């Protein structure tokens, strides 16, 4: 990328973290002028994306970028290092931030939401901490920005200020903070006590001298401690967070926050434990079963939810467990599948959330049972929904098929029959709760008895973003090279 | 028996101390609590004073024909402690005065019901 050629490559990391940070600042300054403020948001997101593209470009050319901020403790620093998995996540998050910003402007204005400035500030801060998580070089840095992400998204969850929102916010903060402090921090300190380092190292930091029992325990603590990955039984925060405005649910609770969770698990699995250590640990199977169980149970719960966003939330919980499952397979196939699924699920799920928001904005409907015949009014929107749903189920020609294919191959390769059965079962269940929505939207007739206001498609600011993400879902099926290349580069590093 | 008589000063100290603490804990009247505190402290003063006493020794003043003196240091120390004790009593009593004017009573059970004293 020539755009940033004049800047030292290491500085790109600082740029990626500080651009959204200053964006937040700018949004705060321009709070009184909504149009300028929104322009600032969009400009920031586009600039950020170009920076991430430059970083991607450097990564493919094998340039190593690192950045040391300061030593928090003697020998333990807050520092950053670019590696392929982080680049993949950063690409997805920064690209979707542009789309979501446009969508959010349409949504927030369309619904006359209050406190829009605070909303956009917190949004930008959250992205800033996501960037820091992507590029963190050690567990300490990861943990710090993990917590910053939790705190900066809390005001977004409680945005509405209603009793329900506050209750949701309390559960959100309660679960995420208590798991991170009680388990994750404990696991980090335990790792430090055993190995004397917190750096992410290809191949892992544990060696033969580390006591197996403790390392196994640490894995459990890590996986449940990273509450953002929503492994059952620490998943309750995700449905609670759905009280937030839809753009928040879309980007943060389908992409940035939850992906930060599974990304952290994947990173810990690859760079702290290492695939070899992982495959020897007894507890790896335990987590694998927990992930399989989460997949099936969350899918079953999703079937019972009539609120569209709640159904999507439980679907998210199930899909996150795909990624955890892939990491716990501890094979190349599994990890590639997980990495791919981070991107695939992001595009698919954000589309679905965008659609939910579009329906809410134009038709003021929140429930699945109200959607009969809505396909006639909003054909484009429902087409996008169909594409997203196909990706969730894992059928061609959508991106979800590719990642699920790798995950299934990985499970077969390691003879993890529980995982195989869970994947198949989950696919069927996914179909069972998405296809009826599509069917009802197109083939059921609208109920005549209720007063039905006529409406068309959502405003363009809402419609275009969801068409873009739906398009990306299809595009990624035909052109999965970029994420595949990044995932493979990561594996090469660690082998 | 020797345990009692050889250390009788300690027994006095211990008994006075217990009496003092008992009053502080059980007394209902705040002035009595201050009195209890005083008895408790006096017991400690006694402990220090008897500690300095040397059997057969006189007051520590240089005089002809005297070779054995009591240790003056604990006595000096306890002078300081007595001053501290008096100051504490003064602060305590002045607090009691202000409590009397604010609550109209210095009986603990009488105001404890009216106010939630933590």
């Amino acid at each position, binding site marked *: 990328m020539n755009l940033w050629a004049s800047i030292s490559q290491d500085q790109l990391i600082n740029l990626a973290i500080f651009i959204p940070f200053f964006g937040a600042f700018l949004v705060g300054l321009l709070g009184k002028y909504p149009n300028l403020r929104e322009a600032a948001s969009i400009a920031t997101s586009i600039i950020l994306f170009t920076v991430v593209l430059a970083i991607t470009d450097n990564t493919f050319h094998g340039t190593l970028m690192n950045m040391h901020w*300061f*030593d*928090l*403790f*003697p020998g333990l620093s807050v520092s950053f290092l670019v590696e392929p998995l982080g680049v993949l996540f950063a690409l997805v998050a920064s690209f979707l931030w542009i789309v979501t910003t446009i969508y959010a402007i349409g949504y927030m204005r369309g619904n006359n939401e209050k406190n829009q400035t605070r909303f956009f500030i917190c949004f930008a801060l959250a992205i800033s901490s996501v960037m820091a998580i992507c590029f963190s070089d050690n567990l300490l840095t990861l*943990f*710090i920005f993990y*917590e*910053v992400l939790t*705190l900066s998204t809390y*005001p977004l969850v*409680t945005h509405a*200020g209603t009793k329900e*929102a*506050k209750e949701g*916010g*309390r559960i959100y*903060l*309660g679960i995420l*903070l*208590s798991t991170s*402090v*009680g388990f994750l*921090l*404990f696991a980090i*300190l*335990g790792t*430090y*006590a055993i190995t004397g380092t917190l750096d992410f190292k290809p191949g892992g930091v544990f060696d033969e001298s580390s006591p197996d029992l403790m390392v196994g325990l640490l894995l459990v603590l890590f996986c449940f401690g990273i509450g953002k990955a929503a492994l059952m039984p620490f998943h309750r925060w995700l449905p609670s967070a759905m009280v937030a405005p839809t753009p928040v649910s879309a980007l943060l609770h389908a992409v940035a926050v939850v992906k930060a969770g599974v990304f952290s698990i994947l990173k810990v699995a690859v760079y702290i434990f290492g695939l070899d250590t992982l495959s020897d640990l007894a507890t790896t199977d335990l987590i694998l079963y927990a992930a399989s169980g989460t997949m099936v149970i969350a899918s079953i719960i999703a079937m019972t939810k009539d609120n569209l966003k709640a159904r999507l939330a439980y679907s998210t919980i199930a899909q996150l467990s795909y990624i955890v499952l892939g990491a716990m397979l501890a094979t190349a196939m599994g990890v590639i599948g997980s990495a791919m699924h981070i991107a695939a699920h992001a595009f698919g799920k954000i589309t679905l959330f965008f659609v939910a928001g579009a329906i809410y904005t134009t038709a003021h409907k929140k429930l699945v049972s109200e959607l009969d015949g809505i396909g006639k009014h909003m054909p484009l929107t429902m087409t996008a929904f169909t594409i997203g749903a196909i990706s969730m189920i894992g059928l061609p020609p959508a991106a979800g098929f590719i990642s699920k294919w790798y995950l299934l191959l990985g499970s077969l390769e390691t003879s993890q029959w529980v995982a195989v059965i869970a994947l198949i079962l989950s696919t069927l269940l996914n179909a069972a709760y998405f296809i009826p929505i599509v069917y009802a939207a197109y083939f059921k007739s609208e109920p005549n008895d209720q007063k039905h206001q006529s409406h068309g498609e959502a405003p363009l600011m809402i419609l275009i973003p969801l068409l873009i993400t739906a398009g990306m879902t299809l595009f990624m099926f035909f052109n999965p090279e970029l994420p595949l290349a990044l995932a493979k580069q990561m594996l090469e590093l660690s082998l | 028996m020797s345990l009692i008589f050889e250390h009788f000063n300690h027994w006095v100290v211990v008994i006075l101390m217990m009496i003092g*603490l008992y009053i*502080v804990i059980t007394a209902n009247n*705040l002035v009595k*609590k201050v009195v209890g*505190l005083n008895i*408790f*402290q006096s017991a*400690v003063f006694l*402990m*220090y004073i008897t*500690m300095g006493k040397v059997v057969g020794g006189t007051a520590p003043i240089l005089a002809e024909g005297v070779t054995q003196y009591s240790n003056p240091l*604990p006595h000096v*120390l306890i002078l*300081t*402690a007595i001053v*501290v004790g008096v*100051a*504490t009593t003064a*602060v*305590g009593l002045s*607090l*009691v005065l*202000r*409590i009397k004017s*604010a*609550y109209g009573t210095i009986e603990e059970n009488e*105001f404890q019901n009216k*106010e939630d*004293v*933590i």
Partner: protein
Amino acid sequence: MFEQHLAVLPVLLPLIAAPLVVLINKPRAAWLLSTLFVGACVYISFGLVSATMDGGALRYALGGWEPPWGIEMRVDSANAFVLLTVSVIATLVLLFAKESIASEVAHKQLPLFYSAYLLCLAGLSGILITGDAFNLFVFLEISSLATYTLVSLAADRRCLTAAFRYLVMGTIGATFILIGVGMLYMKTGTLNMLDLAERIQAVESHRTINTGLAFIMVGVSIKLALFPLHMWLPAAYSFAPSAVTAFLAGTATKVAIYVMLRFVFTIFGAGYVFEQMNMEIIVLVLALAGIFQCSFVATTQSNIKTLLAYSSVAQVGYIILGVSLVSLTGLTASLLHIFNHALMKAALFMAVGAVFYRMGSVQIIAFQGLGRRMPWTMSAFTIAGLSIIGVPLTVGFISKWYLVTAALEQGNWLVAFLVLVASLFAVVYIGKVIEAAYFKEPSEDADATKIKEVPVSMLIPMWLLVLANIYFGIDTSLTVSAATAGAEALLNGSSLVGGVQ
């Protein structure tokens, strides 16, 4: 000329200023004079910290009487560090107090307030720098008597009973220390701390010494509010004037903790206290019980000052926990947390004081909707609160990190886990206030629309503390090295006793 008297100046300056303030008898002039003198103490403390950083000690024979006959002032890196904490907090609280106290204490009593404040500071500094066990008791009582007075100055009449209760408990505690010191003197014939240390090692485990240890530990535990001897603290903190609470929370218990460290490590020696008497188990259990019980009680309070007071008792538990681990890292964690907790609690109590200044109440209802009306105060509260919780990039995280590392170093995984779990209570009780401030509408009856931000003179010291919370949470080199030096001084003090004279 000052150079050679540096060690005694932190006591002398406030002691000289205290009567002057009463003689001047004009509130503004009294405030100015106090601030000048206390500010000078900060400057001197900085000098003392840098002078002792290399592990040496400054010794000063009071009145020219050589120890062990005369009283010795002795500054090493441990007490210099605590002294700096105390004088910095004292200065900032004094800046804050100008407006805050004027609204809570009767006008003609203001010079008396400043006088008592200075006396209290003189006593606290005296405790820190003295090298004489009996002298320590005297300074302890000077500071305590001044504290009782300060607590009783508030307008709410409940402060009187709180002060009285504090007086009774405090006097019992101090007298226990006096008894203990007497026992030590009885056996060793000296009161100089280093002398004591040497001679105790020679006769250790004698019954008199054991009894002395027991009395001193109980007495100090009352003073530092170790669970379950903490009952005086919540009442005193709740009803004292806001500035006094901020001052006490940042200094009084911290100095008492220092007294415990001094007795345990320098005088008795860690080997005797922990290896022979096995005190660490008792202290560990009490510290953990205090952390859990008081954190839990804090979550149930509706008076925010009481809530923070219980939180303080819990935080004392963390500090004592670090001591009970008896290791360099553990002691470093304790000393760090003495400093860090002073920063966060003083900031929190100042914020609460600011709310009281405007709302006239510290009940949680008064906080509703303040996020908009007093944005600076409430954001200060939020940041300091995050620090109590131990969120990264604040000092609270640093303390917690060291404490847990110290526990893990000894393979004590259970304690490490409990410490982390206990910090979740802080999420609940701090979260309660933040939620009220930002996500609840103001209560109807108050003239809520008239509420505005407090004067800048109150905001500046508050925000200085808040910024310090963040700064020392990021750049830890200064605090960690000072705390490590202090911990080394304490640990060496107990092992190198013979060589010091």
